[in-house]
């Protein structure tokens, strides 16, 4: 039997390869073709046809007149070398646009997803311990209400109240204009200030959902006989709460955490638009509006790869965390 980890790792590369091929294919299938518009524009501006072809080839690493299989090989070859072509609207290599945008998105998504789980687990376990109490009912009600409000509505309301009405927080951007883009106190403070509202609106509703999940898990674990036996043995409540209840209740949520991390990267498209937060999602929308196909493909590829990696890490580490799941060795007889 080939080692599970080797097989699982191979699958990641296959998936990424398929995603890249799909992006190539989708862009070819788009009505009008990706570069028809650009070519028409350039030709109308009086640029010689040869030069137009050269510029387009440069943009996407393809020769428009080459057969499709040739274009495909060129595209994949460039991709393999980390070359995603050049952004049409920004006139910069796509890789450098993504490199400057990705940290912001990752920062917002990572912090808000961790907050979602910390808040959710904390509230959910308290709810389970006080099942049926006023607190439980209140948190359940608030969680369900927040879950049913989409995050972009929360974002717009938060932006209106805290940024426009009270003026406590900035309305747009990642850092204030005058601040030097280098690691220092003013930069960090400004960056944090700008990220408060995006993180807050991206956390609230999702945290409610996780609280409800944690509540259900904990109540189920609390009903298990081993918790009762642990109490009979006179173990301290704190030890039971952490080693017995919390651990077994959090485990099933771990995979969800990594998956959610990947999915929420995609969700930033709308979030960053609302806050004019120049992350991956922001550039994806502007690329779409500007018919900037190389940039679109680049952001799409990065977001998908992030999701694939999230699932990959979840799969690999879950067996380390939960002994009941033995990675791919389930056929080993005991």
């Amino acid at each position, binding site marked *: 039997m080939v080692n599970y980890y080797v097989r699982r790792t191979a699958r990641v590369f296959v998936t990424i390869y398929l995603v890249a091929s799909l992006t190539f294919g989708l862009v070819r299938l788009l009505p009008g073709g990706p570069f028809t518009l650009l070519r028409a524009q350039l030709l109308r501006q009086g640029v010689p046809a040869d030069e137009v072809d050269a510029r387009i080839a440069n943009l996407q690493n393809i020769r428009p007149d080459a057969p499709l299989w040739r274009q495909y090989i060129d595209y994949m070859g460039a991709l393999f070398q980390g070359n995603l072509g050049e952004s049409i609207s920004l006139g910069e290599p796509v890789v450098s646009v993504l490199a400057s945008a990705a940290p912001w998105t990752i920062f917002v998504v990572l912090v808000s997803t961790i907050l979602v789980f910390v808040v959710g687990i904390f509230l959910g376990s308290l709810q389970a311990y006080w099942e049926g109490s006023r607190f439980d009912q209140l948190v359940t009600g608030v969680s369900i209400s927040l879950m049913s409000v989409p995050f972009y509505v929360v974002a717009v309301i938060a932006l209106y109240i805290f940024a426009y009405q009270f003026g406590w927080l900035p309305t747009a951007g990642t850092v204030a204009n005058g601040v030097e883009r280098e690691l220092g106190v003013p930069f960090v403070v400004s960056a944090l200030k700008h990220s408060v509202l995006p993180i807050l609106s991206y956390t609230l509703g999702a945290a409610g959902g996780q609280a409800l999940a944690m509540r259900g898990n904990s109540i189920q674990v609390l009903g298990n006989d081993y918790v*009762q*036996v642990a109490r*009979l*043995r006179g173990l301290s409540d704190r030890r039971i709460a952490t080693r017995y209840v919390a651990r*077994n209740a959090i485990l099933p949520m771990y995979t969800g955490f990594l998956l959610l991390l990947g999915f929420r990267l995609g969700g930033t498209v709308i979030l960053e638009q609302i806050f004019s937060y120049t992350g991956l999602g922001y550039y994806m929308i502007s690329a779409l509006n500007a018919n900037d196909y190389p940039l679109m493909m680049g952001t799409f590829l990065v977001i998908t790869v992030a999701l694939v990696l999230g699932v990959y890490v979840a799969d690999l580490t879950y067996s380390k965390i939960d*002994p*009941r799941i033995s990675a791919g060795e389930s056929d080993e007889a005991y």
Partner: protein
Amino acid sequence: MSQTHDTADRRRQDEEPLVSLEDVEVHFEKNQGLFDFFEEPEVVRAVDGISLDIEENDVLALVGESGCGKSTLGKTSIGLQRPTAGTVRYRGQDVWAAKDGRGDVDIPFDEIRSSLQIIHQDPGSSLNPNQRIVDILAQPIKLTHPDVGPTERRERIYSLLERVGMNPAADFADRYPHQLSGGEQQRVALARALLMNPDLILADEAISALDVSLRVEMMDLMLDLQEDFDTSFVFISHDLSNARYFAEHGNGRIGVMYLGELVEVGRAEQLIEDPGHPYTNVLRWATPDLALHADGASEPPMRKIDIPDPVDPPSGCRFHTRCPEAREACREACPALEGETGAHRTACFRNQPDHEYWDSAPLED
């Protein structure tokens, strides 16, 4: 002065039964629906007025239909369930008074708590899935013998695992619960309970989830270890033949429960051979290897199969709605559990030759 007081206490504790239940009642309020705000909450009488003594090295097997309250009675006797009325004493100390710190507490609640242990029905849910067997078993030793070093602890665990038939112990010790079979998990649960050095273990349907072929083995193991560890057992089963096997081999008693009441209790052989209560007879009929007349097995020795609602139990003797021997008197008066403590006791008018029962008319439906 305090010396004599102490010895007097000691003596009193020695004379007291290990666990003693007195007029214990456990009533549950049924959860109310959204629209019954103005109605009286329904009360389920899970256990109703039971008195029972459990001695050192005693074996008591409780049998009865599902829902008759045998589990609740078992949990009450090990202090897991607070009775709504009556008292539970451990060596003379009121368990719930000790818990609440009421009155003079001779035996602290923590000590009572660790002396009364349980083995559950579902072995899969009674072991923490995230701990290795060796860690599961190490905890009770850490609690009862804090000064024992890790090496000796491991040795003790290995020898106990071997004792419960899990060889090679070193191999089993490093596994997680899900890597064991149900029977092996139940042995670990038994070993864990025994490591607390308990005086009483409640085996709550502990063998019901096991393969039929493993049940006798498990019961033998429990009885074997009873001698080594000096414990008593309350063994709950819905199967009279298992209860009989356990009580006979453990030289103990069988208690028969019906709708929250103890209707008959006595030594195993006596109770099976000569049941004093018509309900015990029904249970015997329902157990194929105990039915005395194979040909008579077609007709149940009762008038109705339906179990009455425990929220509103029948008046008088609770079994009168189904009892083949019931007469008018049974509808009005409730027979008490007659007889000396420790002897064969039955709650049925038929054991009182001069009761008015004999003069009243038989019930017909």
